[in-house]
């Protein structure tokens, strides 16, 4: 088995003067759930379309499952399932018939349809017309279409897009089950960062068509130090005391507390006690001291340089 399920080298795509994807080199390990993150317009969908041969790269190479993907050599697509944005379904056909359209094209056994329906838990609704399906059901049927080829690699472009919280949870559980029980490598693009954080083993972060980070989640976390959130009666005074003592601190608003809190960058765990002692010594009432690990979203925003006021306020 090859080490990398997807490998791209200097993948580039221009649309006129606009460079949508710029010298992208991805390395997706076999067996991983790879979260491909980026804000809207970062180049995720263009990249995915190049990975699937839907768009020709202006430059660079795509290797899927160890073999280069070209106009003339697309044989490795037999082992790749894909769901690009919204699922491609025929609304006038039933769920079963939609799968049958692809099954007939591929000349694969009928049993594959039932198997795919069972995996996505739609066997009971297979004879209903797609028009009667909810968005979540359509998304799962789209996944069933991708599974029809018994793929060893799944490429999913924003599979949770438009789903309600329950639908997002179901989709997440389904993707995790596919990776663990069927040993499928999953390449998953999303701008729902919390989603990727919960299931991905590896992440790639893209912005303005360029790869900003690639690695495991622990690698990504090393990009940012932890901090302590201090809730006190006089945040401005506390900020002065802590800054004077040499700590890197700032005041941010916290919706949960209804007032400002002080965030102190933490370099070692022991300083939590020292911060508490210092503030108490100065007669401040400390209501809470909370150690915070930055979420993937925080790191993502830092990497992609998104410091919009709305995001910072949140």
């Amino acid at each position, binding site marked *: 088995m090859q080490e990398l399920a997807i490998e791209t080298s200097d993948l580039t795509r221009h649309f006129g003067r606009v460079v949508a994807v710029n010298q992208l080199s991805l390395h997706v390990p076999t067996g991983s759930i790879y979260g491909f993150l980026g804000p809207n317009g970062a180049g995720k969908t263009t990249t995915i379309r190049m990975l699937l*041969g839907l*768009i020709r790269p202006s430059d660079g190479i795509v290797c899927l499952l160890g073999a280069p993907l070209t106009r003339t050599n697309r044989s490795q697509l037999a082992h790749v399932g894909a769901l690009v944005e919204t699922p*491609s379904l025929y609304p006038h056909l039933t769920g079963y*018939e939609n799968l049958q359209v692809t099954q007939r*094209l591929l*000349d694969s056994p009928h049993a594959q349809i039932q198997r795919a329906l069972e995996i996505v838990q739609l066997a009971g609704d297979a004879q209903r017309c797609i028009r009667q399906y909810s968005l979540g059901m359509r998304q799962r049927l789209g996944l069933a279409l991708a599974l029809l080829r018994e793929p060893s690699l799944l490429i999913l472009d924003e599979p949770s897009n438009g789903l309600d919280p329950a639908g997002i949870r179901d989709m997440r559980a389904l993707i995790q089950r596919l990776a663990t029980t069927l040993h499928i490598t999953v390449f998953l693009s999303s701008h729902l960062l919390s989603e990727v954080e919960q299931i991905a083993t590896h992440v790639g972060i893209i912005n303005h068509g360029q790869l900003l980070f690639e690695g495991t989640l622990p690698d990504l976390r090393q990009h940012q130090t932890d901090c302590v959130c201090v809730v006190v009666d006089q945040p401005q005074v506390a900020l002065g005391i802590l800054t004077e003592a040499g700590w890197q601190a700032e005041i941010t608003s916290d919706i949960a507390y209804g007032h400002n809190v002080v965030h102190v960058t933490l370099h070692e765990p022991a300083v939590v006690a020292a911060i508490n002692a210092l503030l108490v010594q100065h007669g401040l009432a400390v209501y809470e001291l909370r150690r915070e690990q930055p979420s993937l979203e925080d790191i993502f925003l830092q990497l992609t340089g998104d410091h919009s006021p709305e995001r910072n306020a949140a």
Partner: protein
Amino acid sequence: MKALLHAINSEVLKLKRTLTFWLILAVPGVVVAMQFSSALARTRPFHPEPDPWQWVTQGVFFIWCLLALPLLVTLETALLSATEHAGQQWKHLFTLPVPRWTIYSAKLVVALGLIGLSSLMLWLLLLLDGRILTWLRPEMGLVGLPWLPILRQVALIFLAAWLIIAIHTWIGLRWPSFAVASGVGIGATIAGLILGISSGASTAVPWTNFYPWLQPVLILARDRQPLPTTLGFSIVGAIIVGIVGCWEVTRRDVL
């Protein structure tokens, strides 16, 4: 070739619960019904015709070739293409490990098949029309059931329509908008109608004989153009447009 058969098999399934099947029945039905009601409603006496069956078929074929068939081709190919554009099916179909040309070719074959079936419907309905008129208007003098000459004429008209079927299949698959596909078809049909009616054998401008939407009607006007020329132009033209259209559509980026 096996991949093409699978693609055609898949295309046939997509036709389920669509208007396409109704249209292949409805359009010839309307054309024959018009002729039938006109014969039934006629109050003037029928003059003895050397070939009363020709009187029955001529009017039907004229409307069919000049108006109904080009419009049917426009609608059928636009509907066949719309099923792929509406759900952005290309981004699924073109990631499948099957040759892309089979997907385009299957569409073209199904379009040809549907128009062929509609032509067969026209043939059957014409025979039924004549048989009923034999009973209801015996004074017309319809004798026998000349199924073979009528079938031959219907088949020739169908072959002459291959070029417009290939052109409309390409337009439908190339442009996602239903308005483009139907607009081109309606415009070209009206132009064909004007050219067909305004120019007889003696007054026809030579290039109009190579106007694709006029080819079916040239089967009826053999004094304007010999049959082999009409058929050759349509069939060879259809093969060329089919190849070029397939090459162009399957090479495009799916954005």
